[in-house]
């Protein structure tokens, strides 16, 4: 038996390889660098790795290859765009993650135990969060470019496992944080099981695990449709779970609330890009010819996600939970880009993902700023009058809320407009109408928060806004600038996306 060495296109894979290499070095740093130096070394290393990876992504734009890793990964325009978005989001999130105040000093210690107190006093930090982030980012980078089911599953687990861990690292409210991590893990495993089950069905249907093979069977239409439909449904459940679409959303409010806010920011933004990236590839290429079977289902899910997300968000009193429900609604908006199933839909979804991701990181970055002596204040009632105490934080938050609401001159408007018009073009009228109506409902609670911050008198309860550290300030400012620029002058970015975003099959 002869053994053929796998042929790898190292240049095309370099963004991912760099990340993995950086993560491994990060692990070594944990072992060999002194405790005092670790935070700064890790931050520099992580940031450098992400930047280098982004640079490589920039260099391979325009490249196309179906065989970058023996046919398991595919590099094309959408791949580059999605990977670039993930990296940009990771870079601005890493500034937030660098805030040690957010993370427990010793993750292994029982909440409230003597060890924990000791670790806190000795100034311990969980710098492991940096390599974990890099591992998660590499998983996210692989997810949208995987072109067979095994690779897709490996990427899914690779991005999920570090996130499960990181969700449990919050410094304050340790128990809630650990609970959320466990919930996320259990439910994530449950969803992964569905995913694997679906993959098995699809193999049964087509006799192939590659996207190309499944696609051929779908076009040929020779296989057993029940296997295809069940496989498709279960695979989709795994993906819908990750993006938090109804009815697979129940984890997200709890996890968003329990996880340390920087992790929530990163997770909410980057996971969405990765998971929607994978969905775009699967639905636009693999299942495109079975459109008749899944469009109604995905439309229904989009509609309930938008409506439920928007409605329930109204009654939330906690800013992180409110943002969680808003992200559920946004998952619905994004699904309308999948339903569109045309070039415009692809462009719009990629734009929306980037715009929404950046605004999300910015929004959560502001949340990290509003604190009192016992940590972050997420109760919305105590955000009253924030505009007077901290115009910077309040105006930035207002901008991000307006972007979520899709008000013109913010990136959210361009995103919503283009995604809905693409869906409308494909005849998804019901989805578009619901989308516009639930945007209106959503605008109600976003603007209510703005009113709360600017036009309501403050309650004297000692809610202080911390002077933002230079890093957090950088996150807020960069996100705000991107949000505004994409809203006022989106043409170059839209053109860039339109030129690049073509799937190769």
């Amino acid at each position, binding site marked *: 038996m002869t053994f053929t060495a796998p042929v790898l296109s190292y240049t095309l894979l370099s963004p991912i390889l760099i990340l993995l290499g950086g993560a491994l070095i990060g692990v070594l740093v944990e072992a060999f660098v002194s405790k005092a130096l670790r935070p700064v070394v890790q931050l520099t290393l992580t940031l450098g790795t992400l930047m280098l990876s982004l640079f490589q992504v920039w260099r391979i734009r325009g490249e196309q290859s179906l065989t970058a890793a023996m046919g398991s990964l595919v590099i094309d325009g959408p791949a580059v765009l999605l990977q670039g978005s993930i990296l940009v989001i990771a870079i601005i999130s890493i500034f937030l993650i660098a805030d040690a105040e957010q993370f427990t000093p010793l993750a292994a210690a029982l909440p409230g135990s003597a060890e924990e107190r000791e670790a806190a006093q000795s100034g311990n930090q969980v710098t492991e969060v940096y390599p974990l982030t890099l591992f998660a980012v590499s998983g996210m980078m692989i997810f949208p470019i995987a072109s067979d089911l095994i690779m897709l599953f490996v990427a899914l687990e690779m991005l999920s496992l570090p996130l499960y861990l990181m969700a449990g690292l919050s410094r304050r409210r340790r128990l809630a944080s650990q*609970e959320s991590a*466990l*919930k996320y893990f*259990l*439910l994530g495993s*449950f*969803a992964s099981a*569905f995913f694997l089950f679906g993959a098995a069905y699809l193999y049964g249907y087509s006799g192939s695990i590659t996207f190309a093979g499944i696609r051929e069977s779908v076009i040929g239409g020779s296989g057993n*449709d029940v296997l295809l*439909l*069940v496989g*498709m*449904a*279960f695979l*989709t*459940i795994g993906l819908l*779970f990750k993006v938090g679409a*109804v*009815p*697979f959303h*129940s*984890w997200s*409010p*709890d996890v968003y609330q329990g996880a340390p806010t920087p992790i929530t920011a990163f997770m909410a933004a980057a996971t969405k890009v990765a998971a929607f990236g994978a969905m775009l590839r699967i639905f636009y290429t693999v299942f495109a010819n079975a459109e*008749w*079977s*899944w469009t*109604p*289902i995905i439309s*229904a899910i989009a509609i309930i996600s938008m409506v*439920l997300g928007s*409605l*329930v968000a*109204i*009654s939330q009193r906690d800013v992180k939970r409110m943002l969680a429900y808003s992200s559920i609604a946004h998952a619905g908006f994004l699904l309308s880009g999948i339903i569109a199933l045309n070039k415009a839909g692809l462009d719009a979804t990629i734009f929306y993902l980037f715009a929404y991701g950046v605004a999300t990181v910015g929004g959560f970055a502001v949340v990290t700023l509003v604190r009192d002596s016992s940590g972050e204040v997420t109760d919305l009632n105590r955000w009253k009058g924030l505009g007077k105490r901290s115009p910077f934080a309040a105006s930035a938050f207002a901008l991000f809320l307006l972007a979520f609401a899709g008000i013109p001159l913010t990136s959210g408007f361009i995103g919503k407009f283009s995604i809905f018009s693409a869906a409308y073009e494909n005849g998804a009228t019901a989805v578009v109408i619901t989308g516009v109506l639930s945007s209106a*409902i959503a605008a*109600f609670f976003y603007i209510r928060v703005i009113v709360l911050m600017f036009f309501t008198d403050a309650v004297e309860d000692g809610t202080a806004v911390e002077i933002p550290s230079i890093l957090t300030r950088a996150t807020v400012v960069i996100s705000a600038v991107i949000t505004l620029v994409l809203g006022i002058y989106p*043409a170059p970015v839209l053109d860039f996306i339109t030129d690049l975003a073509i799937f190769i099959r």
Partner: protein
Amino acid sequence: MTTSTSLVYLIALPLAGAAILLLAGRRADKWGHLLGTAMSASSFGVGLYQLMLMLDRPTEQRPVGKKLFEWINVGEFKVDAGLLLDQLSICFVLLITGVGTLIHIYSISYMSHDKDRRRFFAYLNLFIAAMLLLVLGDSYLNLYVGWEGVGLASYLLIGFWNQKPAYATASKKAFVMNRIGDMGLSFAIMIAFATMGTVSFAGVQEHAHHASEAALTGMGIMLLVAAAGKSAQFPLQAWLGDAMAGPTPVSALIHAATMVTAGVYLITRSNFVFDAAPTAQLLVVIVGAITLMFGALIGTAKDDIKKALAASTMSQIGYMILAAGLGPVGYAFAIMHLLTHGFFKAGMFLGAGSVMHGMNDEVNMRKYGALRKFMPITFVTFGLGYLAILGVPPFAGFYSKDMIIETAFNAGGAKGIILGVTTLIGAAITAFYMTRVMILTFTGTKRWDDDAHPHESPWLMWLPMAVLAIGSVSSGYLLSSGDALENWLHPLFDHHEEHEAHLFEPIVVSAMALTMVAIGVAIAFFKYARQEVSSVAPENVSIFTKIARQDLMQDRFNEAVFMRPGQALTTTLVAADDVVIDGAVRGVGQVAMGSGSALRGLQNGYVRSYAAVILVGAIALIGAIWVVVQ
């Protein structure tokens, strides 16, 4: 079309000035006014440079453009942000930056005691930039940006002393009335896009003859509404008098020489629309004719020197609008009167400012009198402007106004007679109220309060007045000798080679106009110079005077027709909003809260329930697929 990069500097320089002055804050207090003036002057320099380049080029190559960036590109709707400098816009550029610079210089001294002088200059620079964008934009949408920009600058400057509630109200009034006009402009743009698929001047001009007349008429009327709002024409004229609350240099620059003439620019620029829409064009003439009488009548009863001049501005712009409504024969004269008016009216406003400066900011002319001796330079410059507005040869107004009167008569038929007579009567009334201003202010006996110490203004103030006075004297001759301006603008307008019969010879028209002016002057002379003028306005006056003093009831009219019904509508709407909309929202909220608590049963924090939800969801999904496939 040739590209000229330096066009950008025209706008960029004053814009940078405004930005620097506003952002630098108090740090710039010491030198802010100098920077502002320098920016405006440099912009004027660029304008002159462009004029020289333009003169060197053959006629058909005179317009130059500059595409700035692709602004909007949504589906069929493509707009580039671009600049266009042609024979028409260069006239405006030089007027705006030239008069603007003079007024900057004047303001250095006029505003020297104001602690917010830097902010004032920032707004002036902002205005110059916005006004230049208005006249340089190469599409209606670009023009609209400048249009809103000058509206903003005007609002900020009218309310510059907003610590006085009346002044703040005046700026709000100007803003609100301008919104109506702005709405007209936006409708016109929408009509242009809907019928012709383009909003650029070149594009609309090209497609205008394919469009239906109904669409063009609609667009023309909307453009007229826009012009009426910005240029204080009937029925949107009421804000201009109140706008005099702003510092006097503002009244001179914005509310006399430049911004209020934007409506004339808009109509002249849209000549291709109006030429193809006779109904709209007729409405333009009617609006112009009404306003010129309206303004003149208000002018006769005003004791506030600035309000008298404002009424006169309204009336003179009426002349321009009327001329612009007469079609290709009138455009050049509208622009000529606009330019000469820019000189003499700005000069007179600065003169009024100079008088106020010497009289403790007193504006009531009944408290002036005999100022000639104390302010000789102001008297001479104001007097030259006065002769110009009257249309006495060889001063500027003689050339421009006589042309308009003559063209009005030549419009033919009853229309020609009505318009001609209206313009003639307007000229007589103008002569009357301007003479009244002269007599009350500069001659007769002194009626001022004891604490007033009239004195001539410093050279920084009288120098600009002198320069403008030179313009008042010479601009008419320069622009009309050899039909200079007419030939200059000729390539822009679509001339039909039809020669209307001249109703009167030009010399006859001039004679009639001068006779009317003489009558007006004589009446004013006998009424004010021969009788003692009371320092308080007499109460036992005719009903007509009372009406004129109240601006011909324009505010009462607005109140009765718009404000009260509007308020009633608002009250009703608020009530409806409370019940219907808020009710619906509260309903939605309650439903949401209800469903929220229902869902809270599911969102109970137990991971087993969450897993159950997912499982149920999965089963539902399979079920749904089964249904779909069946």
